[in-house]
């Protein structure tokens, strides 16, 4: 990542010098050695690939198979489900609740990813503008947020908006922003989701901000200086120089954020005291509820599979689009 387009263009001479003797030494080698050379990367990858198949592939297969089975409480003991084909899926697609939850999850993801990326970028730019001490302070703060376990963070947010004793309610009231004493944030799903979004975006900003900051420090200062001399304003310089250069980073961060936010579970589960109301269900909660609360393990697995499919589709389309954009530029 650090040897971006600037690096390659900047030091062609040294690159050739480094590659030269290496190429020269390799020329007289035997064919067998060359095939070994070609195979080496795959051999090196094999252990990791094996581990991935074992710990991810196999469970994934199990979930897939479970989604085609009738699997309830009785089957927990016998450990043998009944194959029912696509019944779980057809039941799911006829359930209005499924479409409500899916739509809610998509909207939730768009809002959260959008806010995370925008605020994260702002914080990253802020980091480049700050003096040494403040930068240290801010990045320490970011790392601390990053390091905080989710359970702790959720409980702190829960206390802050507590109905009886919430410090946020008290502060907002003292600031004369309205009457927030005994404000029940979760009585209305809209305000409830404001709190949840705040919690998730707050937790996601550090990773985004620090990564973008790392990228920003690689943007050649000469380019920006040149743009400034040509009379480009800050926004223009960001839009036409910084952003295109950092596009790969933005693509990765956005895609990762989509994946993370689409499957949010812990925050919602914990902030609603392990019993989220239906109006707070996202796909992951829906799947868990059907499987583990109602004992419909096959049906719950079907929801999980659909969830993965939707996520895969969204990420794939997005990635393709962005890679194409990158190529045309």
């Amino acid at each position: 990542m650090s040897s971006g387009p600037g690096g390659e263009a900047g030091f062609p001479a040294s690159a050739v010098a480094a590659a030269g003797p290496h190429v020269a030494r390799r020329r007289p080698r035997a064919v067998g050695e060359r095939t070994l050379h070609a195979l080496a990367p795959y051999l090196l990858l094999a252990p990791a690939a094996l581990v991935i198949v074992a710990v991810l592939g196999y469970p994934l297969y199990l979930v897939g198979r479970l989604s085609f089975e009738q699997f309830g409480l009785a089957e927990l003991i016998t450990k043998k489900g009944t194959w029912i084909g696509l019944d779980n899926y057809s039941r799911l697609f006829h359930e209005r609740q499924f479409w409500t939850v899916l739509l809610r999850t998509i909207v939730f993801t768009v809002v959260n990813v959008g806010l995370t990326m925008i605020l994260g970028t702002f914080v990253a730019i802020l980091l480049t503008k700050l003096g040494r001490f403040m930068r240290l302070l801010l990045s320490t703060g970011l790392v601390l947020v990053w390091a905080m376990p989710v359970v702790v963070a959720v409980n702190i947010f829960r206390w802050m908006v507590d109905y009886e004793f919430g410090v946020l309610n008290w502060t907002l009231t003292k600031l004369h922003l309205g009457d927030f004493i005994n404000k029940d944030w979760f009585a209305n799903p809209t305000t409830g989701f404001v709190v949840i979004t705040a919690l998730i975006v707050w937790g996601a900003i550090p990773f985004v901000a620090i990564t973008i900051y790392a990228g920003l420090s690689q943007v050649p200062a000469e380019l920006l200086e040149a743009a400034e001399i040509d009379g480009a304003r800050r926004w223009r310089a960001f839009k036409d120089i910084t952003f295109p250069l950092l596009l790969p980073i933005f693509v990765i961060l956005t895609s990762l954020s989509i994946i993370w936010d689409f499957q949010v579970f812990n925050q919602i589960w914990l902030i609603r005291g392990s019993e989220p109301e239906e109006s707070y269900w996202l796909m992951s909660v829906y799947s868990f509820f059907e499987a583990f609360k109602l004992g419909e393990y096959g049906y719950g697995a079907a929801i999980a599979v659909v969830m993965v499919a939707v996520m895969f589709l969204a990420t794939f389309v997005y990635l393709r689009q962005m890679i194409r954009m990158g190529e045309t530029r």
Partner: protein
Amino acid sequence: MKRLTIGGALALAAALLVSAVAASTSSSSPKRQSATKVVIWLQNDAKNGWEQMVTSTNDAFKAKHPGVEVDVQYQGWGDHLTKFDAALAGGTAPDVIEFGNTETTRYMAGRLLQDLTAQTKSFPNSKTWLGALKDSCTYRGKLYCVPYYAGARAVIYRKDQYKAAGVKGTPKSLAQFQAAGRKLMKKYGAQRNYSALYFPGQYWYAAMSFVYDYGGKIAEFKSGKWKGTLTSPQAIKGLTQMKATVRALSRASKTTDEANPQQALVFSKGRVGSFIGNGWEWPYALDEKVGDPSLKNKMSAYPMPSHVAGKYMPTFLGGSDVAVPVTSKNKALAYDWIRIFTSASSMRKIATIGKQIPNTTTLASVNAGNPQLAPFTNASKYSWFVPTAPNWVKVENARVLKNLVQAIVTGRQSVAKAAKSASDQITKILNQPVT
């Protein structure tokens, strides 16, 4: 740049896989038990109300079975069944588990609990068990669990506040109860979070009492099918009265239940005139560590009055049973632990320390003479119970009634609309094939 995006795509693919698996396998795995350890799951109520009785049971058990370890793990009502199901699948289920009496039917019908019919007589008090609890342990003539205790709810209130607000005696009808509440609100309502009646918005046990008081029902079994009946005029009347009472007298959160936070502890903080609680919640409010012992002489209880003057509002006859899952590897030890746990001396402690109704009718006299227990015993004379359908626990797990009460008291839905949606859901769930 191209190589970078490919690397990124690989990272993404890996992240996707991780998320897929995470979505499907989230469950806790309790400790694996060894052969000489009996694992007991009890609810937190025992810990808060009568932990001494649990300790003395364990001591007696260990004296009888030297070398056997007892591991009591306390659970919350919200997720203990989820945990139990997961533990069953993982082969790490406890040797003894406490069930609420509304939760047993599905597990009995699923043959997941050990059949105790042959050993019935070996359990203490088995001839005099409370009928309601024994029924909740019986499925098609066979016994699958042992009654533990029952509880009725009554209004626990602040005598001093009632007096200061000018309420004479205790209310004898719902109208008087509401009038008394209004007096309290007038006197203390200036304190922003004062409630004359602390009634959290998901407190469905108390809310359904209004339904049954007006002659309504949750569901009924007719010609081979279950039908949700919360849309009946009687049920609507009850729910409407409940809404009026809660909206006028309670400033409790409308999105929490009676256990989070524990209403007895909110009461002990002083800004609550009364709440509808179990017998054990009275001493819990006086707890030295978490409550306020100085309230000792300022509080009392009376049965919640009916809308018909002079009668009591039906109370939910809650209770608990203890059972042995079929997966237990220490069944004989588990039975023995249960025998000590439900012995006459243990049950006496449940009555005196826990302020609960013990599992046997022979100990009824222990409660009768005690002014602290009489209101609860009296309240239990009029009681209601959930529909005895094998799928009932799914209605609870799906939070249908909690959602109903919350939708009504927050005003998000009209009484009629919320009742219709809950009733339809109940009909649907109760008629599903038993799985």
